[in-house]
């Protein structure tokens, strides 16, 4: 982040020092008002509610200390949601990172033709809304859908599998969908960085007789380490906040059998469902924030990089 170290040059020769200050305040005012209301006030409000019992019907707040936070850790449903979210993240994040890196490596290899076309095709899932993607995947995986027909025609199954309503499969379907839809974005991030990798690194390795695998293992992967940290962090933040896909998949219920219940979905259910538990939902959201922060820092350490360049 060398850019940040440079102190911005003052715009010289414009009409005086005070004019500049006024212009700055006028230019920042709209952004500042939005941030003050929908970010800063919102955060304070959320923290306040997390220490209260909130009754939305009577619009009353009753201070309850740490009760909401203690409840989170004694709530079996919250533990199920936490477990689902953790498993989801633990599988999706490594998979999306590895696939994105491999595809980017293949695509950046010298002499590969049709790169533009490949990139256009690969980018399609990134362009598509999670709302449309989830519907398309539900169609693919439904009992009479293309995948079941394919598996049966291959003789792998006798009867169609109910991927959508069987708790053993439902979260896995969302994992596949999530990996499939996030890989292109990270692949593009890797590609952008691989452009800067000096060709002479590879040439030197080739003179030493390095194989393609060795080049990937000893040149590409170490070179991409800072970007990998970025990809891992973004992946962790994204997977821990996964909401749209689980919501649409289960129509908001987190079912079948709570198998697709994520923390983000639970926050929604407890805040806006029939229960009067907005304070508890706020506490859950705060706990989620802390978990994301801790897991992100741990990953950063484990990847052995000082974060983003």
């Amino acid at each position, binding site marked *: 982040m060398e*850019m940040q170290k*440079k102190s*911005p040059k003052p*715009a*010289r020769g*414009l*009409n005086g020092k005070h004019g*500049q*200050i006024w*212009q*700055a*305040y006028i*230019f*920042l005012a*709209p*952004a500042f008002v939005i*941030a003050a*209301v*929908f*970010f800063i*006030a*919102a*955060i304070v409000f*959320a923290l306040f*509610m997390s220490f209260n019992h909130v009754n939305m019907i009577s619009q009353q707040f009753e201070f309850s200390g740490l009760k909401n936070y203690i409840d989170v850790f004694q709530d079996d449903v919250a533990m199920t949601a936490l477990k689902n979210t953790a498993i989801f993240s633990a599988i999706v994040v490594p998979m999306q990172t590895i696939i994105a890196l491999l*595809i980017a490596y*293949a695509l950046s290899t010298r*002499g590969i033709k049709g790169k533009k076309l*490949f990139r*256009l095709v*690969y*980018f*399609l*899932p990134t*362009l*598509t809304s*999670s*709302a*449309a*993607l989830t*519907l*398309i*995947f539900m169609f*693919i995986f439904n009992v*009479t859908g293309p995948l*079941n*027909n394919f598996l049966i*025609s291959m003789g792998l199954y006798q009867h169609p599998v109910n991927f959508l309503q069987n708790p053993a499969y439902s979260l896995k379907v969302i994992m596949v969908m999530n990996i499939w839809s996030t890989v292109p974005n990270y692949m593009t991030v890797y590609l*952008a960085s691989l452009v800067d990798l000096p060709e002479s690194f590879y040439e030197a390795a080739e003179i030493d007789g390095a194989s393609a695998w060795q080049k990937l293992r000893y040149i590409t992967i170490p070179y991409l380490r800072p970007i990998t940290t*970025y990809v891992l962090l973004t992946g962790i933040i994204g997977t821990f*906040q996964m909401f749209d896909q689980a*919501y*649409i998949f289960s129509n908001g219920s987190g079912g079948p059998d709570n198998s697709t219940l994520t923390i983000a979905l639970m*926050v929604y259910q407890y*805040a806006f469902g029939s229960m009067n538990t*907005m304070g508890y939902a706020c506490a859950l959201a705060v706990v*989620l*924030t802390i978990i994301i922060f801790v897991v992100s820092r741990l990953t950063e350490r484990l990847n052995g990089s000082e974060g*983003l*360049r």
Partner: protein
Amino acid sequence: MKEKSKILKVILYAVLILYAVITLYPFLWALAASFKPLKEIVSGNPGLLPQHFTLDSYKYITGTSSLFTSWFMNSVIVSLIGTIVNLFLNTMAGYALARLNFPGRQRIYYGFLALMMVPAQVLLIPNYLILMNLGMLDSFKSLILPAAINIGNIFMMRQFFLSFPADVEEAAQIDGLGRISTFFRIVMPLARPSIATQAIFVFMGFWNNFMQPMLYISTPKKYTLTLGLQTFTNQQSGVRWDHSMAASIISIIPIIILYIVFNGYFLQGVRMDGEK
């Protein structure tokens, strides 16, 4: 050595093509299903291509018995207004943070930086209550106002203006332009590439947003596309895969056109994201 690199190339192409097939597979089936009658879809016709090609799904969703056209227009309105507001607010804020000297600049900069790390779930509940108290629920304002700035893009613009040549402003000054008009008439047009990158990602964010419309909008006529799509799966008569696939396909098209037109800007944007 040459033989080896040939084999390697075959493997690489195989990987790339296989992944392209994996990426296209769901889209092709969705596209094919949108041209099939529902009966053919649920009867388990194992072929990709429609046996009874029909445009009925498209006719139905764009017809009067469906609100699809309203949803599409709602998405267009919200995304366009939201994007234009964002472009001005983000660019102005980024410019002020990069080019203007004023007391408290560093503090405001770090304040924005900190806000970027707060996850959406924390903001969701209080924002719902704030919008309720402002009387904005169930209106497009609720979708646009809280998202009228994008802190990530404020930073992108700040970074851009840090390396923006100062003589441009000086020349405008000599020509007798005031500060504000210099910005709108000289600086912003020159910042077009960065603003275009920003525009694409902000537009995509509005167009594809699901969570906020789902929470804030309750009148079916005011739904955005992403929200409207879901109604096809919640029908009494069972899931209308034919309608829902046709609607999904139409919802993707504007973004694909945007991508093809602005292809160069897209990559630039991802690149900047990657170096954040």
